[in-house]
């Protein structure tokens, strides 16, 4: 990052969610349109106040994870293990010779593993508290994905996990980047995961008031639209390999993008959110006109959407052209811990292919003149993009990325 510390590049990507498993299948599915949200299939949801979710129904943990791990871990960890495997394979990181005491894992996750937890409760009350399964303590807790990924790959560097509501993954990715910039690590696997589709978890999410109660999958999650009625939660995860630029150059790593800058702050209003976006731009050495695409939080609450649109319009007021804003998560659901990493993947692929990611279902909303939200995918040259996230508690993260190795003039 140009603001302070060492330069950080991205050398590997991994995703799992309702739209697909693996970067290219996910991207193809997203661009094909149609959306991947649907009725709850993981349990009988009759009478539940939430009807539509983004289930990673094609994901078979046993295909990518050793069986002994599958039994000992929760679904949210499975997503993290699968996405980490993909990201490490793409980065071609030679773990056998790398200094693994300088490789860390920085993940976001909001709730922990409620699938195994609910089974544990059932064991507790049906069979007795003295016979609960011995894996629950380590499978449920929120840093389980971090722990299992460090063990699977022998990663001994500084690793941390964060909860942060919708911004869980954003906070993890921001500080994962800083951990490289601060010279705490040379490489960080960063992103996060979420498995919110279990009965108790879903009811708890619903109590936040942030979830859509709509029954029609094509109209349940409509960020920035006049018909917005709340968000739809999705299952999945995303992991990026973040690497010190010199470290990556020395080993001839495939560089997929660069972190140009970022900022994190907390505010209850649009001005505070805009200030975080502006700080992120400044730290990246960018003006508002230098960003070709914004991937926004887009949580589809009329009030929060308005706040976010106002913040973005203010931060990009001097862009000199309408700034494209996209919320691809409308296709596969809000992944909370996995959300921000997935948005970064969308931005990198948008830059690679010159394509604007879709905001499925968008028709018309309170979008200010300086911003441009469009439902479908379409051609768009993208060199630099900004990803923003904001929690229900006002924690705001914005990061600026270059979709390809930044040339000297970018810095």
């Amino acid at each position, binding site marked *: 990052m140009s603001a302070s510390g060492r330069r950080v590049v991205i050398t590997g990507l991994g995703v799992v969610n309702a739209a697909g498993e693996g970067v290219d299948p996910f991207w193809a599915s997203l661009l094909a349109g149609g959306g991947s949200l649907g009725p709850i299939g993981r349990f009988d949801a009759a009478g539940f106040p939430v009807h539509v979710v983004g289930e990673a129904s094609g994901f078979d943990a046993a295909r990518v994870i050793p069986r002994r791990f599958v039994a000992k871990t929760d679904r949210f960890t499975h997503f993290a293990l699968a996405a980490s495997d993909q990201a490490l394979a793409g980065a071609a990181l030679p773990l056998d010779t790398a200094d693994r005491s300088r490789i860390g894992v920085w993940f976001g996750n909001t709730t922990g593993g409620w699938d195994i937890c609910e089974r544990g409760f059932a064991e507790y009350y049906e069979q007795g508290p003295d016979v*609960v399964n011995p894996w629950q303590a380590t499978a449920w807790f929120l840093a389980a994905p971090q722990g299992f990924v460090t063990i699977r790959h022998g990663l001994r560097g500084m690793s941390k996990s964060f*909860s942060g509501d919708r911004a869980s993954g954003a906070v993890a990715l921001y500080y994962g980047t800083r951990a490289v910039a601060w010279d705490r690590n040379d490489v960080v696997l960063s992103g996060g995961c979420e498995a919110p589709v279990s009965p108790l978890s879903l009811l708890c999410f619903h109590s936040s008031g942030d979830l859509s109660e709509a029954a029609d999958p094509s109209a349940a999650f409509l960020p920035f639209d006049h018909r917005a009625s709340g968000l739809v939660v999705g299952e999945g995860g995303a992991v990026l390999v973040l690497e010190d630029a010199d470290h990556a150059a020395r080993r001839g790593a495939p560089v997929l993008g660069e972190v140009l800058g970022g900022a994190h702050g907390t505010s209850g209003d649009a001005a505070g959110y805009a200030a975080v976006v502006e700080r992120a731009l400044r730290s990246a050495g960018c003006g508002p006109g230098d960003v070709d695409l914004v991937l926004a939080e887009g949580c589809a609450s009329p009030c929060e959407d308005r706040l976010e649109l106002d913040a973005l319009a203010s931060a990009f007021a001097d862009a000199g052209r309408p700034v494209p804003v996209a919320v691809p998560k409308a296709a596969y659901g809000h992944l909370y811990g996995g959300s921000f990493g997935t948005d970064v993947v969308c931005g990198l692929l948008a830059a690679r292919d010159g394509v604007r990611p879709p905001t499925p279902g968008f028709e018309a909303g309170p979008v200010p003149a300086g911003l441009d939200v469009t439902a479908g995918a379409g051609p768009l040259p993208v060199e630099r993009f900004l990803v923003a996230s904001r929690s229900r*508690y006002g924690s705001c993260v914005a990061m600026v990325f270059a979709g390809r190795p930044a040339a000297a003039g970018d810095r």
Partner: protein
Amino acid sequence: MKGVVITGLGVVAPNGTSVEAFWDSVMAGRVVIEDEPLMSRIGLRCRGVARCRDFALADHWAPEEARELGRLGRFVQMGATAGRMAVEDSCLPSSGIDLSPGAVVFASAVGGAPEMQDLYETLTEDGRPPILPRPVPDTAYDGIFLDYVPAMLARRFGMTGPTAALTTGCTAGVDAMGMGFDLIRHEGLPFALVGASENPLNGISYATLDVIGCLSRADGAVERSSRPFDLGRAGFVISEGAAFLVVEDAAHARARGARVYAEVLGFASTSNAHHMTDLLADGESMALTIRRALDDAGVEPSAIDYVSAHGSSTPQNDLFETNACKTVFGDLAPSIPISSIKSMIGHSLSSASLMALIATVGAMRRSVVPPTANYEVPDPECDLDYVVTGARPKALDTTLVVASGFGGIHSATVLRRAR
């Protein structure tokens, strides 16, 4: 590199709900571990807990705020209270300084686990599946997950810097301190409010930890069920509580004439990448962590005057730490006092490391080494100086606080007496 100092402390602990009371209790070696009837009632073999019996919202909050907090999880209540104590103790709000750039870094391992179990009971018939779509209180999300406390503290004191919640289990408290330390050193923040809160005192938490043999099954009086480094140690005693610090840019603190409790010299954290709960007896992964913390601090091993151990009272941890100290300190290891306050107040998961850190700050200020209580039978393999006969007068200049936790995480920080 910027200096970082501690300028505010707040604690809600089983042995005190003010910092002075906490220090008095720690130095007196007072054990506050008690029987937990629920454990035997549900057929578990573990025994002993430590509770914050003196904690009441009404003692700390005006009625309206107490009412708001009272609707949320107990870990939220204790965390908000300890956080507020630390901020007020730092005198930042009354200093007239702009608090807006400040950060809040919070931590918890299990969040609202008891409230989650209550919710499960509410949504089932006698605890049996299926989970029924009954109404859920609108406070469930805020009261179970971790992000209400940092947001609430930031809002109350007008901070608009980063707010975050770490989830790294039993190292999370000192990890929050480490993050605040890095935010000040590397990002130029003037100060950060960092802390942790935990309330794991419920049936499912006991059951899931007992089934893997983590919780103490030690024989004898329940007060002696946490006995770090003793041959008869047989697991940790679970407890609750919250602890917060204000860490501040040393120049910022000096400019406003703040009271400085101690200096933070360095921090490090690593993973053993070996096992979620098992530790290798050689202590190598903790030795690496301590060495990195010393490097970060720019301090030689010989400078360390006291080690505040994780000392959880599990057979494996206490040997693991002992061997880590032998590796790092070599011939000096037997002459460095080491102690574990978990012998007195049990293990409150995320907040335990910050309680140990606050005890260590008290030790430096009072020139007294906190004791390890309940030690009777020496373990031939754990043969260092565990300060087992009561608090010991000793001038302490440079100290080390270490923590380990589920997920194979180890963290360590180096502190120095305020000058």
